[in-house]
């Protein structure tokens, strides 16, 4: 709503740019108050007559008219991002996407860089399956192991950023699921009546100190079931995000695609279009960065205009965001069209089987691969043993 303080008064805005060069873009949109300086509070009738008058002026002089009411009946309006909030959102977008997201880090070259991408893919699979199927100690062990590996392999700026984000996400999940998964009343959960209602003696308390309830915080309680759900979800989230990030940071997209093709090659016998999938994957990995660039550049473009957000109405702010999203999509589609043209010019004729993708990296197994494979076997064995020993 307009914050000019003039109630039930129409405001005018120029639809054409101001002839005065000193005016900023925003000034052309600034409301022109028609209220004379010493005019007392106007009643509804006078405001209507002023509206028709202003309409007449507008028609004659080619102005646009915007009615604004200061009493603002809608409560939802205050929740819409507006003013400095809108600018902050755009600044956040332009800043957030400029940081590298899961992209290959060529230097410093570490142990993980020299591991064969096929072994890395098997590791990835193991890290997705193990937290869901192993003991809680094993889950937390995996989390600590991955965190230490990130610190060792990635540059400081990168691991701090990634560990921070993934840790925060997993932490929130852990707390919410831990405290929330078992707080519903038992009557809602259980269909069978409690033992006291059917004249059965209550279950005796555990002699070994077992307790289903781990912790109680007022109405919230952390039970064994909650702990199990929370630890599984949080650890799974942490391992999936961090292991994928580690893999992408230490492997070129071409190497990953080559490894994936190696695993998928037998599927060509049953008609799976492996070549097409691999080309699509490579193009996607290239295109993701273009999308991030577009999102960032479009946001920067709006921030650079120095729009006076305070003077915009909600609909105008909303309109800018719609324009922003539209611009992003338009640019992305234009990019896609240009890239398809470039592919045609470079000899691609639409059939992936007739256009070879060369993977130039050597894939001979070395000492790093043997160590990585042994560690993987050790990890899987430890997970199986933990299920047997730590019950």
């Amino acid at each position, binding site marked *: 709503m307009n914050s000019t303080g003039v109630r039930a008064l129409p405001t005018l805005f120029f639809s054409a740019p101001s002839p005065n060069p000193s005016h900023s873009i925003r000034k052309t949109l600034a409301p022109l108050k028609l209220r004379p300086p010493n005019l007392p509070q106007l009643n509804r009738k006078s405001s209507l007559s002023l509206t028709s008058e202003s309409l007449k002026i507008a028609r004659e002089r080619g102005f646009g008219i915007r009615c604004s009411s200061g009493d603002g009946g809608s409560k939802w309006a205050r929740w819409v991002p507006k003013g400095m909030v809108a600018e902050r959102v755009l600044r956040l977008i332009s800043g957030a996407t400029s940081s*590298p997201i899961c*992209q*290959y880090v*060529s230097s410093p070259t570490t142990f993980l860089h020299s591991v064969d991408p096929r072994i890395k893919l098997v590791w990835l699979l193991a890290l997705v399956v193990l937290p869901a199927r192993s003991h809680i100690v094993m889950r937390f062990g995996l989390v600590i192991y991955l965190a230490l590996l990130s610190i060792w392999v990635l540059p400081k700026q990168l691991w701090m950023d990634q560990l921070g984000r993934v840790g925060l996400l997993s932490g929130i999940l852990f707390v919410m699921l831990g405290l929330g998964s078992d707080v519903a009343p038992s009557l809602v959960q259980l269909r069978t009546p409690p033992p006291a209602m059917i004249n059965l003696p209550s279950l005796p308390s555990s002699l070994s100190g077992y307790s289903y309830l781990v912790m109680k915080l007022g109405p919230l309680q952390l039970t064994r079931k909650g702990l199990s759900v929370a630890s599984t979800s949080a650890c799974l989230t942490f391992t999936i995000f961090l292991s994928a990030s580690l893999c992408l940071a230490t492997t*070129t*997209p*071409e190497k990953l695609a080559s490894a994936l093709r190696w695993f998928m090659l037998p599927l060509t016998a049953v008609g799976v279009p492996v070549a097409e999938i691999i080309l699509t994957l*490579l*193009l996607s*990995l*290239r295109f993701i*960065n*273009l999308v991030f*660039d577009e999102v960032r550049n479009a946001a920067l473009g709006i921030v650079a205009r120095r729009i006076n957000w305070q003077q915009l109405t909600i609909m105008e702010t909303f309109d800018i965001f719609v324009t922003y999203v539209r611009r992003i999509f338009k640019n992305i589609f234009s*990019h896609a069209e*240009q*890239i398809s*043209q*470039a*592919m*045609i*010019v*470079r*000899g*691609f*004729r639409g059939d992936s089987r*007739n*256009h*070879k*993708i*060369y993977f*130039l990296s050597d894939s001979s197994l070395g000492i790093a691969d043997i160590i990585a494979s042994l560690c993987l076997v050790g990890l899987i064995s430890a997970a199986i043993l933990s299920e047997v020993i730590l019950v």
Partner: protein
Amino acid sequence: MNIGAVTLPSICSHTSHCAFPVRATASNGVTSPPNLAIEGKNLSYAITARNGKLVPILNDCSLCIPSGQLWMLLGPNGCGKSTLLKILAGLLNPTHGAVYVKRPRSFVFQNPDHQVVMPTVEGDVAFGLGKFNLTQNEVRSRVAKALHAVGMSDYLQRPVQTLSGGQKQRVAIAGALAESCKVLLLDELTTFLDESDQIGVIKAVKNSLDGSEEVTALWVTHRLEELEYADGAIYMENGKVVMHGTPSNIMGFLKERISSYTNRINS
């Protein structure tokens, strides 16, 4: 989209507008004119506007470029340089006229983000080679040579998005060079480059031309200082080829225009 030069009508004779010294090269065959790498005759191109009217972009453009030379295509913004280049690359079909371009040909876009399609440098340079049946070693050698020619040998495994605009442009040029094309169509390559990169890229193209007498390049530019590297130049205005000749002739023509314009506004 039809991009095969084979399907386009070919021109077999020299046209009267080709008034330039032609370096002697071997004949390319029966259907192609001897010594000519690019020839366009009375090319016109128009698009249909929303109101159904035809908007002419190119109007009766004729040009011919001999093999083994670097030619520049100059003209103000919106005069149809890029459209003409896209017609020569086979990306657009002319509404009228005939075109002949030696094959294989390669096109480098003005914006390298539109050209670079693979996530890493070596992968992208090797992408254009996918249409040939080459061994891994041959591909590796071609990629290394092309990257060396543009001074990007140390960036083999670098992700493309971490490169600057100029570096991406070099990768795009390396992709074209690796294909060992007979015709290079280069659209304002130096737009994103600083002065030293600009000279570096021109020299890289010039070197590839010197290496083989069969390679020809048509370079679209706005920068007059690049004319000194050219063997010939074409000047366009309002969708028409205004002048076609040696760089010194074009330079003289442009200087005359500038002085007449200066005199007009000073008088």
